């Protein structure tokens, strides 16, 4: 059996914490090999070791049978190893081409030969079907294209062993399908791929074998054809996991959120939300399905007051809240789990405790006559940490030190605890493992069952289908259809999201 990569008994320790405990992973030539594990299981760490970003504290690495010492990413590049990182490694202010050639620039004299570079990028992108605009700035292109740039970076360097660290977490279903096709094409070209993903469906669809790790330890490697999602999930979590969250039929009450003819422009002044109408009632979860960039972000930011809208009306329990300040809107009874937890959700340098009162710090009992009451704040924090299973050494730990999943649980705890009439959840489970997803879905449904309105925005069709009571499809800033999840299919939704079909009947509701 020919292995292109062998990571044998790899051990990696951070301080006193063992992130990788004698993990073994062997990659065959021409296969797509999944690496599966909970958040914080040590997947990224293991791959960073392979890519030369970390040095292992034990074990050995062989590339094509030869023992190697990967001291830095340069060595990895030379060995033909390329990595698409979980958090994109792109320079926002550079063009696509500049990002791709960075570090091995073609030159003409002393100068970068940018025309030649663009030509090469264009050729490469055509050859692998990775559509990119070589002259576009990274900041101006979609997440999907950014990812294609990441892949091109590795191909440009001639990598034949590719590591994808959670590439699909940030993609829309369409983009995921495209990526799957790309990976298959790459394998046909003789490349080998390690794929990290939390989506078992994807593993079943494209992978040949899967290695499961749990809490830093290797659990084993299986052939995908000989296993199933349920088995994989329990292997990785160590217990039974339910994919389909159980829920009672909804008891729909009066309208809580009513949006009429809302118009919002994005930061570049282009109309992003275009005369949009939507109603969310008490006791229901409305899921917004749509391809990224169809106005979801602007819609939510307009409702929560983060940006100003042009015209229309937004009423909460009958009260007009359009263009009020975020504070006024929060106080009217809106909770918001933001899409970008690092940018909006948390003050990463504050302790968890202080983050837990980010919306309420100025109110009793946390503040009296302008003076903070730390006892009340940290009592509350301890209670939420307990209730929402936030894994942290203590409530004084900086939010920065928590893993993404736990940061997310903290935010959800904070928002749900305020018991808002309307809870807006934007991509609440992005990048989280199945266990954490299950937990968060339960919490959303709990809110609904308490008679609150929930507005869920997600690119994950699974999530939308599972959790929502009604699905509103957004396309080019308008709600183009309202469908019942029980009466629709992913195919139909996909078509609606692509704007190729309209379901006029539902629109007015």
């Amino acid at each position, binding site marked *: 059996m020919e292995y292109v990569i062998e990571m044998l008994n790899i051990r990696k320790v951070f301080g006193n914490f063992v992130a990788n405990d004698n993990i073994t992973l062997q990659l065959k030539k021409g296969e797509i090999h999944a690496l599966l594990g909970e958040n914080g299981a040590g997947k990224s760490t293991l791959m*960073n070791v392979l*890519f030369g*970003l*970390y040095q292992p504290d034990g074990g050995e690495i062989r590339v094509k049978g030869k023992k190697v010492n990967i001291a*830095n*990413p*340069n060595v990895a*590049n030379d060995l033909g190893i390329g*990595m698409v*990182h979980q*958090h994109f*490694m*792109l*320079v*926002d*202010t*550079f063009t696509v081409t*500049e*990002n791709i*050639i*960075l*570090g*091995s*620039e073609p*030159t003409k004299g*002393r*100068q*970068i030969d940018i025309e030649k570079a663009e030509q090469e990028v264009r050729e490469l992108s055509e050859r692998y079907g990775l559509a990119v605009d070589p002259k576009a700035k990274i900041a101006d292109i979609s997440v999907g294209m950014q990812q294609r740039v990441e892949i091109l*970076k590795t191909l440009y360097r001639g990598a034949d062993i590719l590591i994808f660290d959670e590439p699909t977490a940030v993609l829309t279903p369409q983009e995921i399908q495209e990526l799957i096709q790309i990976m298959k094409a790459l394998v046909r070209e003789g490349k080998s791929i390690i794929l990290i993903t939390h989506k078992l469906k994807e593993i079943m669809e494209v992978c040949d074998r899967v290695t499961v790790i749990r809490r830093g330890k290797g659990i084993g490697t299986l052939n995908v054809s000989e296993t199933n999602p349920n088995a994989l999930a329990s292997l990785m979590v160590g217990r039974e996991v339910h994919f389909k969250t159980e829920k009672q039929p909804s008891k729909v009450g009066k309208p809580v959120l009513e949006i009429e003819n809302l118009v919002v422009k994005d930061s570049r002044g282009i109309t992003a939300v275009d005369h949009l109408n939507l109603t969310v009632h008490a006791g229901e979860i409305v899921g917004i399905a749509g391809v990224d960039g169809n106005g979801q972000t602007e819609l939510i930011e307009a409702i929560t007051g983060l940006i100003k809208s042009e015209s229309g009306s937004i009423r909460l329990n009958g009260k007009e809240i359009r263009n009020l300040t975020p504070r006024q809107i929060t106080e009217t009874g809106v909770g918001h789990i933001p899409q970008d937890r690092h940018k909006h959700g948390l003050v990463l340098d504050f302790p968890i405790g202080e983050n837990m009162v980010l919306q309420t710090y100025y109110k009793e009992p946390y503040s009296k006559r302008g003076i903070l009451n730390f006892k009340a704040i940290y009592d509350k924090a301890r209670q939420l940490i307990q209730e929402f299973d936030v894994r942290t050494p203590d409530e004084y730990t900086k939010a920065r030190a928590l893993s993404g999943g736990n940061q997310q649980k903290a935010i959800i705890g904070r928002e749900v605890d305020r018991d808002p009439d309307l809870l807006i959840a934007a991509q609440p489970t992005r990048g989280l493992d199945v266990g954490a997803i299950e937990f968060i879905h339960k919490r959303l449904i709990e809110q609904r069952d308490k008679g609150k309105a929930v507005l869920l925005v997600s690119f994950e069709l699974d999530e939308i289908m599972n959790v929502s009571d009604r699905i509103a499809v957004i396309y080019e800033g308008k709600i183009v259809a309202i469908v019942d999840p029980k009466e629709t299919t992913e195919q139909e939704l996909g078509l609606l999201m692509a704007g190729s079909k309209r379901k006029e009947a539902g629109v007015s509701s």
Partner: protein
Amino acid sequence: MLHILEIIIPSAIFFAAPLIFTALGGVFSERSGVVNIGLEGLMVIGAFTGVVFNLTFADQFGQLTPWLAILAAMIVASIFSLMHAVAAISLRADQVVSGVAINFLALGLSLFLVKMWYGKGQTDQVQVGFDKIDIPILSKIPVIGPIFFSNGYVPSYLAIVLAFVVWYVIYKTPFGLRLRAVGEHPMAADTMGINVAKMRYIAVMLSGALAGIGGSIYATIISRDFSHATISGQGFMALAAMIFGKWHPLGAMGAALFFGFAQSLSIVGQAIPFLKNVPTVYLLILPYALTILALTGFIGRADAPKALGTPYVKGKR
């Protein structure tokens, strides 16, 4: 009117030249992600070295002395900037703190040495300086010639040429691309096999070299000696020029020229008849007020390199 320009422009250029050199140094350092509040101190070192070299070797090197003095200032200041580099890059120091330390150290050390070597608080005056020149041919162009190409100093023109060179280096060469990448997203650069620390070391030392030139030409052309007051605030003005110019070499040059222009306007203004009765204070604050107005009115916000000020630690997210 033309006559006034013939006075204002050359003096704006000579005033701006030290700022241009130093601000270009700042551009290198900060583009690589290292804050450099220490520009002032690096200029001090440059001025000190330039003057001391000039005084010591004037007899040996004759007319070549000021040029060699610049070279010496460049080398010494870039070695001095190594302290900032070590602290900020290898020792993960707070870059502002280490820059402030550079400022204190530069002034303290150079005055200490002046006292030791010359037995007094300031050096003697340098005897061999740069000559004022009219650029051949160009200075003969009507209108433009007398305004831009007469009565100038070679280093002043070099400063302007250098700004274009730096622009070329930063925007057109692989080195520049890597430098900017390191300042925007060091981890991305790292994964592309670029040695982040090395790039930053080079950038900081370049900033030392250029600030050294700035300081030494200031001392050689303008003050002609070195004392505690020789460099007093020019480094901060250069820092302001760099930010004003949005971390862009040509922008920094433009901003420095703008300062120079405002400064000489405030001086020539005192001689313009209808401004005679304006109290001096208005003319004194003119350059600074103009800068604030310009920033507010039409320059607007500037975005610093994203990784500016953050030490790069491998594997840290």
